[in-house]
């Protein structure tokens, strides 16, 4: 697979209708078929698409999975969530690099292989994990890495690698109405057509379904407002950019319940009058792409997509899959739409919200994968059935992605209102000390709060549930998350662009044993700026892990402080390093005396 074909740029551009709005998809195909996006390809694409080069370069340089320099025939990216680290990722990566005589972030001398880290790839239940040329390999250990190293040395094309390396079990530990009940494709659509669009919205309203992406906006309100909004066309977008570290329930929904998700999108199309829909699938889920395309093809065969769906005159709707390219921020709905339009994923100024002005500035519903799955269930079984599950403010069930220090990591489906303690018992986390609920942007809770409940009125969550036992260092957890946010900040607004990096640098300063109480105070100050002035949710929540762990686990910080007043970040001796290299000296006199 990684043969460096001559890039068929005209062919790729034609496949995407010569439409600059499809630029991210075009670049992704160029990257995949050529292994890089070279500078002259940018010029050629500018010509073929009739847009300025600077626009192509802007997009090409924004996404982490695009690069101009060669990463060899095999690009290996280790998932770098804290859960991967807890499962031994750092040592395994080093082992792997030594086996292949490699340095991370440096192409091997024979131009064959390149190793680096990447943000969480949605396999926290099977950590540590990696991507090879975009395809996920879970549950790494030395034996599996030995095999990978051998295959690379033998220069075996990826397509010929043993399939068992790429097998990813669903790990559904506790199924409920969403994951545990059989669903006959078409059932929800038939009910919708029989009931009519108005009555379907009424059922959704009665169900009290709220968005599963974490924010909890009422779905019926969003759909109704989009339906009312005037425009040349309406669009349905499914947000499958499941990038929050520790979350993987959408991976399982898409791998094994894709019909339910696509049917929910089609029900939405009927309700709002849309003819086109998109599934925005994170690039890390590349391995699901072919399968999802075949599910879409099967649905077209069955008359569940395409023209005159289920024989209903004028009910036309189809779904395209767009893949992401390594940008967490594209999980923010307006950044996702920017990405669908071929631009860097930077959140828009809002209002207007997508329900009025979304894709191509037209009314657009953007919902999470799980929300569409729930909507299909509600269309099939009615609103009252759904509303009876969970709590009065949080109807239905919630898929929870459990990982970290527990015996049975995987997906658990609970009616809303389940306590953290219950989940910990079910997953076999006997020594739990802390849980990160809803990922780095969510809430860190300590053992004192295990009676809190998963619900919009208590612990709102997009689904991540990372468990930390007593021996884990909560400072390192927070430090890993600050690195994540600094890497994923889109760079649009001042507070987040600069603030996330300042936070990261300060946490590194503490880790290096150079921290003082002043730094703790500074981090609170930066948190305040981020919360009050950042452009979007990423910035608003980026300091949460630091501030919450500081509050709940102060020991983890205090034992790292060198002094209680102030310690400079500037390393005077380090500043002499360039001079030492130039003069070739490294004797004691070439160093400042350390205190």
């Amino acid at each position, binding site marked *: 697979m990684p043969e460096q074909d001559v890039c068929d740029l005209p062919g790729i551009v034609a496949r995407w209708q010569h439409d600059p709005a499809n630029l991210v998809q075009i670049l992704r195909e160029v990257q995949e078929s050529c292994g890089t996006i070279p500078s002259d390809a940018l010029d050629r694409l500018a010509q073929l698409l009739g847009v300025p080069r600077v626009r192509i370069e802007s997009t090409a340089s924004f996404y982490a999975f695009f690069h101009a320099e060669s990463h060899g025939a095999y690009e290996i990216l280790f998932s770098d969530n804290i859960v991967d680290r807890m499962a031994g990722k750092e040592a395994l990566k080093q082992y792997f690099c030594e086996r292949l005589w490699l340095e991370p972030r440096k192409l091997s001398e024979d131009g064959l292989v390149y190793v680096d880290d990447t943000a969480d790839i949605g396999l926290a239940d099977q950590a540590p994990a990696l991507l090879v040329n975009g395809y996920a390999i879970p549950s790494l250990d030395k034996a599996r890495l030995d095999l990978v190293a051998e295959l690379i040395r033998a220069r075996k094309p990826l397509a010929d690698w043993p399939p068992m390396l790429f097998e990813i079990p669903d790990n559904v530990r506790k199924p409920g109405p969403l994951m545990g009940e059989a669903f006959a494709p078409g059932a929800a659509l038939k009910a919708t057509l029989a009931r009519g669009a108005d009555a379907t919205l009424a059922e959704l309203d009665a169900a009290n379904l709220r968005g599963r992406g974490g924010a909890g906006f009422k779905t019926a309100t969003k759909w109704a407002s989009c339906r009312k909004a005037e425009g040349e066309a309406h669009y349905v977008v499914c947000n499958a950019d499941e990038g929050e570290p520790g979350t993987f329930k959408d991976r399982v929904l898409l791998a094994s319940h894709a019909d339910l998700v696509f049917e929910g999108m089609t029900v939405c199309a009927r309700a709002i009058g849309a003819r086109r829909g998109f599934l925005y699938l994170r690039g890390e889920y590349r391995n699901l792409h072919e399968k999802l395309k075949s599910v879409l093809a099967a649905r077209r065969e069955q008359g569940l997509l395409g023209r005159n769906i289920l024989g209903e005159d004028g009910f036309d709707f189809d779904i395209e899959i767009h893949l992401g390219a390594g940008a967490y921020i594209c999980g923010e709905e307006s950044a996702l739409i920017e990405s669908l339009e071929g631009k860097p994923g930077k959140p828009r100024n809002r209002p207007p919200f997508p329900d009025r002005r979304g894709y191509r500035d037209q009314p657009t519903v953007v919902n999470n994968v799980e929300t569409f799955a729930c909507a299909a269930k509600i269309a099939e079984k009615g609103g009252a059935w759904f509303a009876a599950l969970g709590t009065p403010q949080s109807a239905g069930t919630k898929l929870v992605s459990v990982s970290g220090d527990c015996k049975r990591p995987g997906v658990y489906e609970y009616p809303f209102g389940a306590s953290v303690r219950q989940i910990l018992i079910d997953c076999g986390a006997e020594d739990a000390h802390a849980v990160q609920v809803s990922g780095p942007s969510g809430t860190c809770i300590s053992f004192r709060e295990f009676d809190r409940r998963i619900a919009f009125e208590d612990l709102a969550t997009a689904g991540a549930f990372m468990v930390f036992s007593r021996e884990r260092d909560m400072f390192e957890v927070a430090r890993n998350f600050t690195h994540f946010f600094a890497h994923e900040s889109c760079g649009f607004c*001042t507070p987040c662009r600069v603030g996330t990096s300042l936070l990261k640098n300060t946490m590194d300063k503490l880790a290096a044993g150079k921290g003082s109480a002043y730094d703790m105070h500074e981090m609170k100050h930066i948190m305040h700026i981020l919360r009050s*002035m950042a452009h979007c949710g990423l910035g608003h929540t980026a300091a949460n892990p630091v501030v919450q762990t500081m509050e709940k686990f102060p020991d983890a910080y205090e034992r790292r402080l060198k002094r209680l007043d102030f310690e400079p970040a500037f390393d005077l001796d380090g500043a002499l390093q360039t001079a030492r290299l130039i003069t070739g000296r490294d004797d004691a006199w070439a160093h400042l005396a350390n205190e």
Partner: protein
Amino acid sequence: MAKTFILDGKTIPFEEGETIMEAAAAAGVYIPHLCHHPEFKPHGSCKLCTVSIGGRLGAACTNKAAEGMKVESETEALNGDRRALVQMLFVEGNHVCPSCEKSGNCQLQAAAYHLGMLTPHFTHFYPARDVDASHPDVLLERNRCILCELCVRASRDVDGKHVFGIGGRGIRARLIVNAASGRLADTSLSVTDRAAEVCPTGAIVRKRHGFTIPIGKRLYDHHDIAEAPVAGMERPGRD
């Protein structure tokens, strides 16, 4: 009767569709800003103009004025946060005012004066950034770029040339130009373009004009930025 809203206790008239920033400027009230320019589409990235809108914080340049809305801008807390943003911009780039030909006409420097910034406060990043002197008439000094995208907007929306863009992301975001070589000389930029003179800092400057007005006799040497928000422009008045 014109519609009005309240800004720091003062009644501000506005026309339907105007932003808080536009209405305030028309009424002669200054709200600190860097990426905003009255001639260009609002951007909302520098966040200096963050105000409290009925208790909720938002950018004055992108939020529309509404009848009866209560807006707070000149509070100690907001100005303190704005000062921190300016400090962030200073440590993010390499801003050396004493040796910069824009000194005295620079809006970043002027905003820092206005907000009472005395030190950079945060740890400097000292990034390695490219200087591009290839163009015969225009210098591109990326060390002084604050990523406000005014040149991007001016070139795209006024000059119709797309000379500038933003590449990369996060702290690595940088100003890029429309040429395979990456050199300004290989773009279609002309010194008479709007994009060549809209930069609020010294990142894009005309060559050979650096000191036609000596330091000490420049706009912000004598005026607070609140009195003269844009160099060379009269405040738009309204009767």
